[in-house]
């Protein structure tokens, strides 16, 4: 199944190039250069992986990550940055990011992480569904 990816970075040329390469690898990519628009998309639909730039105008990656983890905890976030510091990486992981990748990213490494994100999200969603079914069975007393 094609991985559904949301790619968020304020550098339009970067987003366009990376999105095209991901699509050539069979992924279903939604590209976004405006962080607020990206958060609206996250609220409206589901993604297997969100590749998010750490520094953007208005809302930075850490703020966006907090919002995503609060509203859609099952979605997996991979933070991208041209400003890779150990502190930011640790902060991002503590906040629930699945991984942290430094720019320029290796497409094979990134693709691998996206596939892992999809698998992780599927497990979380399956567990949630199982819990829901068990809850319904309990309530109905079947």
């Amino acid at each position, binding site marked *: 199944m094609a991985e559904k990816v949301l790619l968020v970075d*304020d*550098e339009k*040329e*970067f987003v366009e*190039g*990376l999105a*095209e*390469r991901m699509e*050539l690898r069979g992924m279903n990519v939604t590209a976004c250069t405006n962080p607020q628009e990206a958060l609206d998309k996250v609220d409206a639909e589901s993604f297997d992986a969100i590749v998010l730039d750490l*520094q*953007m*105008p*208005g809302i*930075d990656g850490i703020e966006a990550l907090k919002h995503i983890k609060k509203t859609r905890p099952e979605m997996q976030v991979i933070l991208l940055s*041209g*400003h890779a510091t150990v502190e930011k990486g640790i902060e991002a992981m503590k906040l629930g990011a699945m991984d942290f990748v430094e*720019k*320029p*990213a290796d*497409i094979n490494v990134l693709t691998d992480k996206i596939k892992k994100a999809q698998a992780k999200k599927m497990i979380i969603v399956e567990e949630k569904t199982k819990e829901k079914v068990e809850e319904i069975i309990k309530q109905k007393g079947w």
Partner: protein
Amino acid sequence: MESTTPQKDRDGLCFFGQISAAISHDLKNVLAIINEDAGLMQDYLLMANQGMEINPDKLGEIAGKILIQIKRGDSIIKNMNRFAHSVDLPECEVDYRELTLLVVSLLTRIASRKSVTISIAESDPVKGKGDPFVIQMLIAKCLEICIDSAGKDNELNIEFSNEAGNSAIKIIGLSNPVPADQLSGLEKNAVNVGASLGFSPQDKILIIKF
């Protein structure tokens, strides 16, 4: 209390570090775009090796994008070089307008993260004597505070004047009051550079006078 020399040195080093970090970030972005575009070209060539037809226009378009990023990278490095050489002489003839243009270029990322745009008015060179590095540091500190004061989605305008041997840089477009502690910190910095500050809350203007 007056700043001690080690503190002044430390302030200078911090400023140099802050600007270097912003430059490295911009260069990383340039490299990331070149990396994706060169990679995309490689993807298409691999597909061509497997028998898929490639549209030459597509390759031309990608190569054009790479050339644009190389120009962008070159201009960032030129600014970086000018900034690095600004510590060469402790005093020389300076053009305040040129120095402001350089500082604004170096602070573009910081301003854009806060969604503030900075425009610079046309003017003749505004010349004087001074230490280019510390003058840049003062302009940058003033601009950073003005960016915070302007607030999201607002614009700062910079104008210059040179009358009777007095040069001035006017930053227009402040929205919120500048906190008193920040203003007194700026005034100390200005004294160190041999400049003075004028702040007009009602006109939303900060003036640096040399």
